[in-house]
């Protein structure tokens, strides 16, 4: 066992980490100082795990970096102290900090692929840490590296040592980065969004590993995440941040069960609670609008290769139906083919096999103007879906003029109506996209889609670029206008709570196939497919925190 353990024992009594009144200011190009972290104080005892939760821009990542004595270019610690094991990191010189990094405090950065050097084998990268930081000899470093890989649950460590980062899966990379971070057994381990880049099955395994590491080590752990489910899963304490300030902190069981602050309640409100009734309204029974049968798609390869080895299938034998005015949720993680499916229905892509029948007529590769009008799409990234050089009103009026043949005045009146239906002030029509918030931009994109007067709307991850607080508002507006116009909707998402909120029926996709399809309430309450069950298990952890009886029922 490394020597560090003895020191750790002594530190158990008092907090390892004491942050007092910490402020970090960021100076913009215009010279104005902006407080990104504002008067943050907290303690962390040895062996404890703290979750820092917050939306993007809350300052949580800046705070995490500061715990390693690091600030992004342009920002400085403007006040307060960070005492780690007695030393104030704010007062330490750069070389002193550098000496402590990796040994006393270590970080697991967000993107494991970007944090590994691609020209070196992962074994060498880990051994480098052990030689330079822990001062081990080449031979000792190799043995310890094997031991660490084994500890990380990586299969066949001997062979893995000789692999390059791109040859590993996302979960394996994350394990390698974790191994590097704990190589010198640091007192404080900071994990920045450790599972965001991983699919749910891998996420569960990595979280299990982190939990095991926590019980084997004495050091403290800080996990930065936007996902309250992760906090519920592995943290003892939680700290909720907004606009650089701490909104609420306390033990997870307490905060999640009875949050004191409205903001915390709002964040927790987005958590999936399948035991409550779904808010999705049933559609009036209508005839079938969209019928997909035996759909298959592969990416084309260069013509010589195509005959010998066709590309891997992206979609295989997909079949689904959607009635008029109905909302169908399509759940899948990245790589499941759900976006490809949306692309085929809208006409961005052409399927290789199978039929897509829309309102009784098979859709050809070339759509008629009427079909184009009736099938509209809303994209994932709200900013890039609006032309930055055009006023948003222009963007909404364009389909009105193109499809409805309205003149400037009538189009502008109709655009204002659509804005009002989506809860946007008509004054915003003359703004440019950058002058709007992400939620407003996405509502403008929805207004543009509805301007065409569609019968079918494809929504591809429309909430994933938005913060939890904005998502709820956007979905409410979308549900209202959808019901009012009687538009059918294909809601493609990886977020189960979005489907729970919006869709009565759901399809679960994985690896280009449909695993399960049916009523949302039935599938979410008693999934038959193990993959669906795993997705649900991951998505309902926040709701189950502090309610052990629910874990029994669902986990």
């Amino acid at each position, binding site marked *: 066992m490394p020597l560090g353990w003895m020191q750790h024992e002594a530190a158990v009594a008092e907090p390892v980490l004491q942050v007092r009144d910490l402020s970090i200011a960021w100076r913009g190009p215009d010279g104005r100082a902006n407080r990104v972290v504002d008067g943050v104080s907290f303690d962390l005892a040895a062996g404890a795990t703290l979750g820092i939760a917050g939306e993007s821009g809350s300052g949580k990542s800046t705070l995490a970096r500061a715990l390693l004595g690091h600030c992004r270019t342009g920002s400085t610690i403007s006040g307060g102290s960070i005492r780690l094991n007695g030393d104030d990191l704010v007062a330490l010189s750069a070389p002193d900090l550098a000496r402590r990094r990796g040994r006393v405090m270590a970080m697991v950065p967000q993107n494991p692929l970007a944090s590994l050097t691609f020209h070196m084998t992962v074994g060498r990268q880990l051994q480098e840490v052990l030689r330079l930081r822990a001062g081990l000899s080449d031979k000792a470093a190799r043995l310890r590296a094997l031991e660490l890989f084994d500890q990380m649950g990586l299969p066949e460590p001997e062979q893995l040592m000789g692999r390059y980062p791109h040859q590993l899966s996302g979960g394996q990379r994350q394990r390698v980065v974790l191994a590097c971070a704990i190589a010198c057994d640091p007192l404080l381990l900071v994990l920045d969004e450790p599972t965001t880049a991983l699919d749910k099955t891998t996420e569960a395994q990595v979280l299990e590993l982190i939990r095991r590491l926590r019980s084997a080590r004495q050091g403290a752990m800080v996990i930065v995440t936007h996902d309250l489910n992760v906090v519920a899963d592995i943290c003892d304490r939680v700290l909720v941040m907004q606009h650089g300030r701490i909104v609420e902190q306390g033990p997870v069981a307490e905060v999640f069960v009875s949050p004191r602050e409205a903001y915390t309640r709002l964040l927790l409100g987005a958590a999936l609670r399948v035991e409550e009734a779904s808010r999705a309204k049933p559609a009036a029974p209508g005839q079938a609008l969209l019928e997909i049968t035996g759909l298959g798609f592969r990416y084309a390869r260069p013509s010589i290769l195509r005959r010998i080895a066709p590309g891997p299938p992206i979609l295989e034998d997909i079949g689904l139906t959607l009635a008029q005015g109905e909302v169908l949720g399509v759940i899948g993680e990245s790589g499941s083919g759900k976006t490809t499916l949306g692309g085929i229905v809208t006409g961005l892509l052409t399927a290789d096999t199978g039929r897509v029948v829309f309102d009784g007529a098979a859709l050809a590769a070339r759509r008629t103007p009427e079909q*184009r009008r009736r*099938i509209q799409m809303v994209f994932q990234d709200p900013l*890039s*879906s609006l032309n*930055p*050089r055009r006023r948003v009103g222009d963007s909404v009026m364009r*389909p009105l003029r*193109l499809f409805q043949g309205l003149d400037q005045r009538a189009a502008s009146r109709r655009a204002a109506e659509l804005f009002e239906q989506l809860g946007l002030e008509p004054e915003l029509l003359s703004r440019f996209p950058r002058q709007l918030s992400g939620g407003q931009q996405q509502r403008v994109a929805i207004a543009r889609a509805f301007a065409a007067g569609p019968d079918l709307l494809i929504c591809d991850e429309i909430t994933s670029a938005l913060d939890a607080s904005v998502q709820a508002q956007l979905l409410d507006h979308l549900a209202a206008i959808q019901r009012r116009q009687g538009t059918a909707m294909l809601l493609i998402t990886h977020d189960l709570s979005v489907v729970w909120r919006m869709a009565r029926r759901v399809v679960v996709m994985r690896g280009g196939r449909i695993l399960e399809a049916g009523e949302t309430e039935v599938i979410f309450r008693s999934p038959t497919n193990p993959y669906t069950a795993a997705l649900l298990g991951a998505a309902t952890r926040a709701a189950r925190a502090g309610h052990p009886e629910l874990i029994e029922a669902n986990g």
Partner: protein
Amino acid sequence: MRAMLLRPAASLGLLLVIAHVLIAIAAPWIAPFAPTSLLDTPLEPPNATYWLGTDDLGRDAFSRLLWGGRVAMLVAFSAGAVAVLGGALLGLSAAYRRGSFDDVLLRLVEMKLAVPTILFVAIFVTGFGQSVPVLIVAVGIIQMMGVVRTTRAAGIVLMEQGYVRAAQLNGESGPTIILRDLLPNVADLMAVEFALRASSALLLVSALSFLGLGISPPTPDWGLMVEDGMALLESEPALVLAPALCIATLVLGINLAAEGLADALGLDAARGGSG
């Protein structure tokens, strides 16, 4: 604009350009003598009347210097405009259409890179005659090739954006998408390209004049003045150095201003400078 002027190099560049443009515009009024009239004995050394002396035909070198940027700048800026407008339309069309149109256009651009610039203009000028419009078109085409490449690259990125996808899905026509969705979003790139192409065109025009392929005598022109003075470099160095300095300061000025503009707009200067 303010961000640009915060950079000292950019303000210096802008100052140089403005000074040159003002002098060129005001030349008819501020020049002490007419640039083409034979006034005195040839090759007078600089004195109180003729500040830079007289040239080999007895014309006032200083007056000719003040006049000498007018035609070159006209050609350079017009050619820059031709290059940027034409290049952007071609480049964005290629990004929009891709396929064989894109392939052919790129091969043409590569062919131009393989042919020496001066040779290309020489053939062009021999074919269509030596005049200012022909020169503008020839230099404009030369400069256009680089613009095609940069705007095409920018256009390919824009084609992936949601608003272009949405317009395509709605069945908007190609020209509408290119003019409404693509062109306005490469405007900042075009501004920087214009400055870089104009400075490069100015150097090219001066070189062509020096070789006798550009602006024809007796029009006062820096390139021509350098050529005339070459033989007398040892006895009358001012006749070469003064126009050379003018060309150098103007080109330097435009380049510094362009770099400042690119920085201020957040464009990579290296991207605009290639091709």
